[in-house]
């Protein structure tokens, strides 16, 4: 089971990285979102025990580690904000550069 979890998380990361290396900026944005999903899973997997119950004080069984969950919450919010910002940038880029090809967004170089 752990292997499946690890491999799927790895796959999500790989898919995310592959996507951010695409020329289509929308695909790259999707890559960012994939990566942030992957990160959430990863952080969660860094918790210290296999929880049998949700992290509530009423739980009678072993609860899942609450701290990584709190970290994931924060990470989710931050990446959501960033993600919206990226799409704003993409919109402006598309009107200014008349392209969605990230290789053509290369006014800044050298």
């Amino acid at each position, binding site marked *: 089971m752990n*292997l499946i979890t690890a491999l799927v998380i*790895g796959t999500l990361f790989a898919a995310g990285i592959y996507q951010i290396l695409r020329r289509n900026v*929308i695909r790259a944005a999707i890559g960012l979102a994939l990566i942030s999903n992957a990160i959430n899973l990863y952080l969660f997997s860094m*918790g210290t025990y296999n929880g049998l119950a949700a992290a509530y004080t009423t739980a009678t069984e072993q609860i899942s580690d609450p701290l990584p969950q709190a970290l994931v919450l924060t990470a989710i*919010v931050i990446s959501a904000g960033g993600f919206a910002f990226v799409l704003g940038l993409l919109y402006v880029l598309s009107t200014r550069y008349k392209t969605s090809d990230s290789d053509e967004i290369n006014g800044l170089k050298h």
Partner: protein
Amino acid sequence: MTESILLLPLLLIVLGLPVVFLLRRMGLTNPKAGWLLSTFPLAAFFILLYAYTLLPHGKPLFFRLPWIPSLGLNFSLYLDGLAALFGLIITGIGALVVLYTGYYFDDAHPTRPTSGETHKSSLEVRFFAYILLFMLAMLGVVLAGDFITMFIFWEGTSISSFLLIGYKYKDEAARKGAFKSLFITGGGGIALLAGCLFVIHLTGSADWNTVIAGRELLTNSPLYPAFFTLIVFGAFTKSAQFPAHIWLPEAMSAPTPASAFLHSATMVKAGIYLLARLNPALGGTDLWFWVLSGFGLITMLAGAYLGSKQNDLKPLLAYSTVSQLGVLVALIAQQSEIAFKALVISILAHALYKSALFMAAGIIDHETGTRDLRQLGGLRKQMPILFAITSIAALSMAGLPPLFGFLAKETLLASATHPGLPPIIDSLFPLTTVLAGALILFQAAILVWGVFLAPPADPKHPPHGHDPRPGFWLPPAIPALLSLLIGITPIEPAFLANFLADSAKAAYGAKVKVSLALWTGINVPLLLSIVAVSLGAALFWQRNRLRAALMTFLPDLTVNRLYDWTLRGLDWLAKTATHLQGGQVRVYLRVIAISAVSLYLLLGGFPPLSLLPSPQWNLHGLNGLRAFSLVIMAVAALSTIFLRRDLFSVLALGVVGLSVAVWMALEPAPDVALVQVVVDILTTVILILGLNAIPRKQRDRANELLHSRRGMTRDWFVAGIFGLAVALTTFTALELRPRESLVSPYYAENAKPMTGAKDIVGAIVVDFRGSDTLIEIMVFGMAGVAIYTLFHFGARKPGEASTQETLQTLPARMPRGIYALPTSPLLHTLAYVMLPLAFLLGATHMMYGHDQPGDGFTAGVIISLAIAMWYIVFGYQETRRKLTWLNRNNLVATGLTLALLNALLGVALGEGFFAPVNYGDRLSLPLPPGFSLSSAFLFEVAICLTVMGAATLMIDNLGRIREDENA
């Protein structure tokens, strides 16, 4: 405190700087300013002289001011014979040069237009300031009492000479020359710094005394060759030794007063001073001897030879300076008394005649408008005074009796023939000296002949000129006369002799006897001198042929090409470096990803495979479900890649998010699952808005752009190894479960008693780690503000109305038509009902977030998505009109303010910053069970407000396509 007198000369010159600016205010002319300002160096000269007389018997004056006590570094000044010799030259000639400057830039008496030098009637503030600055730096170099102080002033000379050389900056030659000199001497400066650091490191102190006393330590150190090379390189670049001499001729684009000062008397001597100063500490080794004499002799010859090829007076003089500097370096190489005697005499003699000659050349230029020997001639009658001055100085340069130069040459030859020199040098030294002497004499003769005696080169346009005003010729006359006086005085000037002996002693490290008698009987030096003079005379006799031959056949010996190549090489490297920055962010990301994985491997982040346990496949029960959601997740994630349409890819992403939520719920982590759902939907909506905003054509084109098969393989590889690395780490962490968490049990135990929360995650988010959350919502809020700013201001085209203005001018535009969704009463009703429901849901999330999933963030997002529904159904403008309270920026501001105040209230109540406070209990309010009016609740409200504001800012700005673009 007699030592502190050493500060005075420096302070005097510093004082001169503001005076320059004051003088401009007063509207003084240049000559008057020259007179006035020259008193500062002159006073410094006398103070130095006085200070010298104060020297306790044979001991230097040493002034020290702690500078960086923590490193044991001081600002220190030091006066001994050697320092005094250089200091007096600097201030003495400096005073003359300042005076000369005033007349040089005088426009009240214009004679002729000069070769490109601009003349302004206003005060040349900049020049005076630069020259004083330079004088300060130079004086500092020679008066410095330790390596660091010296280095500081040393760099000062580089900078101020850069400014002086580049003074006529409109002239490209001036700019190039200035850059070249700075490049070369600056490079030398860095070497010197490194070298002196070695020395300080070894001896433990930068003071000259300590350094000199550390001779054994230094010369025996295995690092000796390293720091020797560094220091000597620094000195050589400054003193224009071959092949670093190339900057000196080009520095002649400086105004003549600067050349006279920098390139004859002072700056180029800084290297000489340094070598002389360090001779007792570093000298006497074989390395020292061979390197210094080698470079010195080559430079001597090269300078003499190159000078003979020149037609312009200033380069001619400059090359002869190069030659002379070579001589001085070669002298320092020797470890004999006579050599150091020759050294000090040569330094003084050269300073006197060369400054006179430079200033004279400047006058010639000023009066006739040219410095080219091919246009000059016959000026003897028009300019008798200048003729006299030039002749005396030139004779001294040529080393003819009865001038001081003769004495210099005699002692030089004496040291060249000094027994005990190593075999090769003992024949090479006299030979080169004679040859160089002859060439220098030839140059001197050509100068006097070509300018004053020969018939004008072009009889139809003879040069016109007359002697300038006395103030102008006085500055060169004084050193010229001194050259003569010291030579012909029947009584040996004992003071001068002792002074020079004292100087030589400081450089030599032992007592040196100096006599200034011209006539020392018939001896080898005299004979060699006669040979040199005859050779020079012969060369002069054959001057036309010789110069023709020199011009046509013999090489320029210039290493400018080397310099050019160096610069070109640097530029090439620089261009190459910047071209690595190719502008394609994908390349950047790829490089970073690969580097990151390499770093991971390098640091050993992967577990050894032997340590990995064999996988356990317990896929029953919840695990089976988990596996199922994981598989869906992976399939959907990979489909985002393989699906052709962007929209479908986005939908697949939505599926990924939902399956993550399911997984989280199974884990079980309901809080995270909830936020995951909320954010997944927000993300999907935002992405759809993004798709909406970017023209379909563009996206389709970007999708059709084929990635090469190789490129895709490479990207898969990068992605693959990256994924593998993370998977390995994850697997390790999972296999190590259960592990000890130091903090989580505490949260589990204390959530209820200390914060009143059943939801431990919620308690961590708002109580235990509240400040994370505060900043997190600030990030979210700033993202909203950023998008708002971008769409309302930053991305607006010039002349485009702001969306706020559009809002006010456009009529409410409700889309009409049978098939338009916004007209559907069904959706109207749904939207209308959703908003209050969202409010209620949000309210309960905030109120009971401590006991159940949901918090201010989910509340905020839910409400803003309900508002988004209004935007969709009623249209943006109608929504804004209907929901008057929806001021997004104010919501963000209010939320953040509330969050901060809430945190601060804890301080005010003595509980601590961000501490949980239950106001409900404190005020004994009757509240519904499960709800506590606490700091946590207020924080949730703050979060909700911020998120609401920010999310609506995001949604509406991204969602609202400009009318024109949609048309």
